[in-house]
Structure formats: structure tokens, C-alpha cells
């Protein structure tokens, strides 16, 4: 099962290595990983998306909690939450299909952020499905390059 795990950590060197080691030692591939400061500058948040056996992942979460430098671990599995990912997609384009690309981008509320003679760069924000859907639409034009920030997640409501 796919898990989105949010980890609050001390903003120190070596913390990422400790976390990565836990997943690597069990042969889990991390689908995505996003790290950034929180509202408190000495605390960072890591959002990790990983697929694997539920029981083993529960164990991994306990072990994450046990690591020094880790303040809190939240698995969004059963709580209402939002996920966002940002992707930059460079698509082949020529004069004759540029307007079609602009239309597709509009439908997805994506932005064209760069244009050159033979390509455009599209920026899109959304959950995994939305980005996947845009990718499917763009594939026939020819995707030259793509990069993504990795998913970040936040629980809904006050908590």
C-alpha cells in the first residue's frame, strides 16, 4: 500500500541519512521525498511517499519515531489530508501546435513559463493523478524532460 509519511525533524546535518538508512536497510524504494523548513526554522518537514507491506511500514514508522533528531512522525494513511506536487515539463512544440498546448495547459490550470523555438516548459501543481493526466495529454507532443518536487502533504482542519 502507498503511504504518505510526514516527518518533523531537527534541521541538522545527517538527519536525512538516518532516515534514508532505515528505508534502504529494508529494501524500500522511496517514491518521492520533499524536505523544507517549517514555520519554526530549526524544524524541517520531510514528506516521504513509499509503497510496501503495511506491517513492515508500521515497524519502519516506529523506528523513525525512535531515531534521535526526529520529533514527530505522521502517516496520512487514514486521515483527511491534501497532497500537492509541482512538476516542470518540457514539451516539444512548433508554431503549428503551440496554441493547442496552451489550451491543454489552461484546462489543467497549468502555466507556460518558458517558450523557445522548439519547446515550451509547463508548470503544474496538483496531486499525483492530475499530474499524471496532464502527462498523458502531453505525451503525443513529445516530452523532452520532466522534473518534480515530490509530494508535500498537510492534514485538513485545525489540528
Amino acid at each position: 500500500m502507498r503511504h504518505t509519511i510526514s516527518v518533523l525533524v531537527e534541521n541538522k546535518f545527517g538527519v536525512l541519512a538516518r532516515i534514508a538508512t532505515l528505508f534502504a536497510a529494508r529494501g524500500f524504494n522511496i517514491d518521492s521525498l520533499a524536505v523544507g523548513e517549517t514555520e519554526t526554522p530549526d524544524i524541517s518537514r520531510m514528506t516521504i511517499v513509499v509503497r510496501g507491506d503495511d506491517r513492515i511500514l508500521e515497524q519502519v514508522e516506529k523506528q523513525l519515531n525512535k531515531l534521535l533528531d526526529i520529533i514527530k512522525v505522521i502517516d496520512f494513511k487514514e486521515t483527511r489530508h491534501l497532497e500537492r506536487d509541482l512538476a516542470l515539463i518540457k514539451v516539444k512544440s512548433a508554431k503549428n501546435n503551440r496554441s493547442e498546448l496552451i489550451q491543454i495547459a489552461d484546462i489543467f490550470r497549468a502555466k507556460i513559463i518558458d517558450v523557445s523555438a522548439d519547446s515550451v516548459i509547463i508548470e503544474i501543481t496538483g496531486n499525483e493523478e492530475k499530474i499524471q493526466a496532464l502527462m498523458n495529454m502531453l505525451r503525443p507532443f513529445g516530452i523532452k524532460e520532466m522534473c518534480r518536487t515530490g509530494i508535500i502533504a498537510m492534514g485538513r482542519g485545525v489540528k
Partner: protein
Amino acid sequence: MIKSGAEIFIECLLMEKVDTIFGIPGGVLLPIFDKIYDSPLRFILTRHEQGAAHMADGYARSTGKVGVCIATSGPGATNLVTGLATAHMDSIPVVAFTGQVATNLIGNDAFQEADTTGITRPVTKHNYLVKDVRELEQTIREAFYIAATGRPGPVLIDIPVDVARAKCEFKKLDKVEIRSYKPTYNGHPGQIKKAAQLINESNQPVLYIGGGVIASDASKEVIELSEKANIPVTTTLLAMGAYPPGSKLNLEMLGMHGTYHANKAMQNADLIVAVGSRFDDRCTGRLDAFAKKAKIIHIDIDPTSISKNVVVNVPVVGDAKNILKELIKHVKENTHKDWLKTIEEWKKSKPLTYKNDDKLRPQYVVEAISELTKGEAIVVTEVGQNQMWAAQFYKVKNPRHFLSSGGLGTMGYGFPAAIGAKIANPDKTVIDIAGDGSIQMNIQELATAVLNKINVKIVILNNYYLGMVRQWQEMFYGKRYSAVCLNENASSGDKHSKSKQKKCMDYVPDFVKVAEAYGAVGIRVTNKKDVKTSLKKAFEIDKPVVMEFVVEPEENVFPMVPAGAALDEILTHLA
């Protein structure tokens, strides 16, 4: 007060009430060793850093205090790794210091540079690289706090040479607080009540206690609980000494080489109360056939141990001693008469035994040690057959008196750990029960023992083999003895010769001469009738003594639950 990093190192150790450090100096440690030179700390110069780590471990296991070791950058640090992993697997509080190349050289492949924090990350509870002298004091204090609290474990601090030289204000911090580290000590009252209810309802309960009972000093509470409700107790290797031998409730050790009745009791229990034990594969046997009728209560300070291997009905997270104290109040008295009778019958049907003929058998040597010391000596073991015979036949009376590398199974652990234990307990007899294979893995520490007058006794059960592997080859690989004979010259062409005995005189090394070369006393015993007199003599000599007992070479450890078998598929002799 302005102090250098090296001075802060000494000050912090004194504040932590450290009296002894084990280790070896090196280039990047020069500023620190210059301060050790005139400090009140006792420095034990070992002959190998692995020895230093195990000595710190033995010191810690035998006292409950934090053991301290130090090694230089690069090879010094990598040599500590086995010792740290050993302490980590068995939850032993150790603080290790390593020197590191200067901060401006880190990552440049400098001379004697290794990524020490990277290498030791998976084998420590936590580790630090101190890049600024202003962080050193806080870091050292945190390290001792982390090592000794919660589930104890080793912590490493890597100190670059320029940090040891740099100066800053020494604050004399009076306490340490870490926001991301808050171990739970008190059990949840609701969980404790649920646990008590399960105990009160059970007809066939077993207490399965592990190293956590020793770490939490909960032996008294275990005895009280077991006696109140007449619950039989089985101990893991690490809990040896936590329950008195000779009690009819003591089932002794369980697992691969545990007693028949302990394993039968586990398999037939309707309730297992695990205290500070972690359902290690050597204890459970095949998991899908493990204790199928039993409900399980698991008391442990480490939530990651719970439901890791075995699904638990009532987990109670916290310190064993605190939880047991509460639990005892809610547990009703009970006789469990039928259950204890059944166990007694199992015990009678297949008791722990060996062939008591006139041959010199290793079990006899251990029994003689047990008898002569009345189980009051500190026994340290190596790993393999010697370790299992020690566990089976040394009837240890007190906690922290049986030290053994259980989790990692480190050959070479015993002798240096015995030195550490003897330094911490100068008035006690400390005996390392060793095999001829494992003793050679850290035999260089004889120099450390002799020069520092650390009067440990080494009992080598010499069977000319890496005995445990040989036993498995005999039982499961058609007696094809591959690379297990320590008395064999592989190039001589008679590698498959059956007559190992005739070459005894060629055994390398001659342990008596080795002992003498180091200035220790060497004694060789080849006859059963000389065992007790020789042991007595050795115990009276005020020097390290190496005793070589030339035992039956192909003696096996029984009972045995083969790897992958269920706990009750137990062999008591060769098929």
C-alpha cells in the same frame, strides 16, 4: 571559564563520574591524550580498539554504568565497529569517542580519515560529529544521557582534531533535555490492568524474561511476581542471573539450546508474559509454529520491539521495574499446580545432561567452575559451544554476573569484556569461558591484562574446532567438516584425515606458552580428575591465568532446536 575542547572532554567525563577509559591514542587524539595525561581518569591502554570497545561493554554490563572507550580516526574508529555493534544488539550503555581529521580536511581523503559517523550510524543508538567546539559540552552530556536512558545503547562522538584544540566557554551544564527524545518509563495503567486480568485468567502462564530485566534492575520484581502467582520463568541468554537457580519455578534458558521443559512450556502456554525480551529468532524457533495457544503480554521500554516478530495481545510500553511493581498489585495469588506438575514431568523426562564418563568433557569443566565459585563469580563467555555450555551449566546466582554477546554473537568478545568487568569489580572472581577459536580473536589483550594486573581467569575449552559450526556440519551437512578444524594444516594433503587426536601436539598455538610469553600463567589440563584441583589452583593465583582444557573434540551441545524448526521439535541427542 574558557577551556579547550580537550579540557572540556575531561571535565564532562568527570561530571559524568567516569573513572576508567579504554582505548588507544593516535595522531588526531594528541590534544585529548595530553589532557588525559594529568587527569584523574584511569586510562587502560588496550592492544586493539575492538578490545577497548568490548572492555567498555564488559564494564557497563557488570555495573549498569556507562562504559567509555576512545579510538583514533580511520582504522581506530573502524576497529571499534564490532564492539559498538555488539553493544547495540544487546542494549549496553557505551559512549565511544573517536578522533577525526581537522574539519577543513573532512571529505578530502585525508590520512587516516574515515566517515566514522556514516559507518557507525546503523550500529549505534545515536552518533555525533562535532564541528564546533561550542557544541562539544552539550554533545558529550547528551551522549551519556542517551546511552544510559530508555533502551540503553552505544553512542559515538566524533571529534575533529581542531575542535579538540579550539577554545570556548565551558558552561558546566547541569542537565540535559532533548525534545526529540522522551523515553516512556511508566506503563499505561489501563494496559497494566488488562495484563493483570490475562494473568489472573490464565492456567498455563510463562514469564519469558530478557536482558531488559537486567537493564532495568527488575530481577526482584520478576521473582516477586512469579512467586506470588506461581508462574514459571524462562530466561534468555541475556537474562541469565536475573532469576535464582534452583528455584522450582526456574525453567532456565529457552530457545535453540534451551532446556526441553522451557521450550515445551513456551509451546504449551496459554499466556506468555514477555518482560524486556524481544522474541529473537533463537528464542522463538519457527515463528508460524510458535506458542500457538498463547496470548501474549509484552512489557518493553522500546515500542519498536513490540509486535515486531510476534503479534502481541497486550503491549505495555515502559520500564520493566516500574510496570512490574504496578502489575504485582493487580495479580492474584495462584498455585498453578497442574501446570507446574506437567512442566516437572517434562523436566524429568528430558533433563539437561551430558555423558558423565571418565573423559574430559567441556560440560564437566563448566559444572566444576559453577560448583567451586558457588555461582557467585562473574562469568563472561565467548561465542559458540563454549557460550551455550556456560549458559547451560554455570548456575549464575546474580544479575550482571553472566556477560555474553547474545544478539550479535561476537567471537572475541569474552576476554576483553572480562577485563572490563574485572576492572569494575576488582573483588570478584571473573572468568572468561572460551573456545580455542574465539579466544584467538582478541588474545592480544593478554598484554593489557598482565601489565595492568587485571587478574582474570581464562578457561579455554579446547576441542581443536570451531565447534558450533562443526556441530552443524556434523548434523546437517553429512559430517563434511569444511574449514572448522583449527589443528589442521590445509597444505599438508591429509586434510580429510580422521585422526585429529594424534596431531594434538602440533596444535597452534601452544596456549601455555602464549600465556607465559605475555607474563601470565598457563595451565594445561588433559584429565578429568585434574579439573577441580587445577581450577582451584588457578583461582588462587594473583595473576591472569590461561587454562587450557583439552576436551572431547566432537562433543555437541544438546538440547537443540535446529534452525527453522519449531521450539518443540527439539533434539536431545544425535539422530
